[in-house]
């Protein structure tokens, strides 16, 4: 597949990995990232779907140097790679990039990323966010959205699922004074690839990549891109870019869609459509989208 007409020059993330059919998450994240970086990159990943689908010994889908150490330390490992390249006079050999899931990045790996960014290590950290611990069977993470039913935040007679909002990762990392920070979606490959190119030239940098997971979110494997786009078109996943602390670019939405269209497609939100109380919950989620629209100026005005 070539995404949005981008020629797949060389498959640096090889096909044949063990990702789920229709994976809009780890598999697309890796593929698009390497399309952007080319060969001159060293990648570090935490334990995550990507690690599991791509490197069952002795196979590897990675045609660039790649390392996995543990769950919470990818940013520290990447820092080590970066300083080693410097110490060995090989700083121009490669850009150092981390790619990891939301659990390994924003929960258990948050401290290591904070350390790397605070030190100013020249790395790009990409979190592909499939909004739960998918690899272990869809447990809630700090990046699971409000009301999503997961195996550790199940909906039930007295619960609508996850009671908290997604962690604002960009807010946290921008506060570290990093040069470049952006949100993106695997459903908008061209935008993401452009952002990776900018990010690796402006390190330290962070990209929060929304990454639909058909298995964990409960939608048909042919709908990954559609679901990803709806997250953006409803305003639930705003796409923007922050350079040196200032928002410099926002993806505008013409005729923002109601969140219901996004929620209805996914099994994890099915319980919201069961009764009157669910409607109230959907209203709350709509209010979050409206707040995003206001905060980031998402709505395209007449004549824009």
């Amino acid at each position: 597949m070539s995404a949005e007409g981008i020629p797949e020059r060389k498959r640096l993330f090889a096909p044949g990995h063990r990702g789920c059919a229709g994976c809009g998450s780890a598999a697309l994240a890796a593929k698009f990232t390497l399309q952007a970086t080319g060969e001159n990159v060293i990648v570090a990943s935490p334990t995550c779907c990507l690690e599991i689908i791509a490197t069952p010994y002795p196979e590897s889908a990675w045609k660039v140097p790649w390392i996995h150490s543990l769950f919470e330390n990818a940013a520290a490992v990447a820092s080590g790679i970066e300083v080693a390249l410097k110490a060995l006079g090989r700083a121009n050999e490669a850009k150092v990039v981390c790619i990891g899931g939301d659990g390994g990045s924003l929960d258990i790996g948050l401290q290591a990323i904070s350390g790397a960014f605070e030190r100013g290590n020249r790395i790009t950290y990409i979190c592909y966010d499939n909004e739960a611990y998918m690899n272990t069977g869809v447990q809630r993470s700090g990046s699971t959205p409000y009301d999503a039913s997961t195996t550790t935040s199940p909906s039930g007679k007295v619960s609508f699922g996850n009671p908290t909002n997604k962690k604002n990762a960009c807010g946290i990392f921008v506060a570290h004074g990093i040069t470049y920070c952006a949100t993106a979606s695997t459903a908008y490959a061209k935008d993401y690839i452009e952002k990776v190119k900018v990010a690796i030239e402006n390190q330290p940098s962070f990209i929060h990549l929304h990454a639909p997971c058909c298995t964990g979110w409960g939608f048909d494997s042919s709908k990954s891109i559609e679901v990803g786009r709806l997250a953006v078109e409803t305003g639930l996943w705003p796409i923007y870019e922050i350079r040196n602390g200032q928002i410099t670019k926002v993806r505008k939405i013409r005729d923002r869609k109601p969140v219901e269209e996004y929620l209805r497609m996914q099994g994890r939100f099915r319980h919201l459509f069961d009764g009157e109380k669910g409607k109230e919950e959907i209203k709350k989620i709509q209010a979050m989208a409206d707040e995003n629209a206001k905060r980031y100026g998402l709505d395209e005005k007449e004549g824009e």
Partner: protein
Amino acid sequence: MIKVVEGSYAVAHAVKMCRTNVVSAYPITPQTHIVEDLAKFVADGEMKSEFVNVESEHSAMSVCVGASATGARTYSATTSQGLALMFEVLFNASGMRLPIVMTAVNRAISAPLSIWNDQQDSISARDCGWIQLYAEDVQEAHDMVIQAYKIAEDRDVLLPVMVCMDGFLLTHIFEPVNLASQEDVDAFLPPFRPEFYLTTKDPKTFGAFAEPDKYMEFRYMHYEAMERAKGKIVKVAREFSARFKRFKGGLIDEYKTDGADVIIVTMGSVIGTIKDAIDREKKAGLLKIRSYRPFPKDEVRKALADAKNVVVLEKDISIGMEGALFTDLKAALYRSGGRPRRPKCSGLIFGLGGRDFSGKDISNIIKKVRTGKELESFFGLRRELL
């Protein structure tokens, strides 16, 4: 060049002389002086290294993992709680066969909180797949760093090495130390040139996962490398001795064990105290375990072949069993081929949390052993506090 320096300084000096590329550490008492000295060397331009101040010991060892996998010679130092926090990364570094060298300053583990010396921290990390060498004095802590890189980076070994030194008792003491010269270290220790490392010139995958049909073989190869390390530790000690004209190394040391009816077995800084006491006693000897992992089973058996009484002194305890060294030592003796020789073995836990221990205590222990009375397993316990 012999200079009176602090133990921590001697270790930092050795790290500098090894032309270590990347140092990453998190400050924790009593490891701090080592990393402070290294930071100063770098700040003064005396040491061309990347010094990475991290936000935790977990990240310190993770930085070493990334740097070592990229082909850099790496160093860290920690102690106690820091070593415990690193625990997960210790297994990972050794499993990936990365020749990282670390000084494990020995300190008690909380609770209760104690910054003082015992060896519970590194003993608890004995199964992490690292080589563990225990230093008797400052000179040895210094010499062992230089030897550690040569052992670790040997392609038949490729294992990380922990050089263990007693906190405060060695790190903060001033002693005359023969500080290695750059010329000698360069002649002894070749540059680190790994066969496989992270490079775009030859992309490799590091840290793949292994299914049940392959995992066990990795562990076996790790075990085999540790077995091979025994020979290398001895070989490197000989090479070191040839260049530096002093012998500090190898798996064990024996002191006056010939014809001794009581042999004390121990590790670390208490050895100097014991040697002094033994010099005043007749027919008492000392077996020093320098390499705790790999454990020198054959050498221990041989050294204790004629022993009647063996007393293991150690600053750790496997709660629910006994001192870890005591267990290991008895296992080594039990496995003797042919006629099993079974000296009377006593295990003594002493000095936990920095409790003082003197040469007089040693003399009393030796006397009591000779009476045939059972020794109490906790030496110096203050029963009035229980």
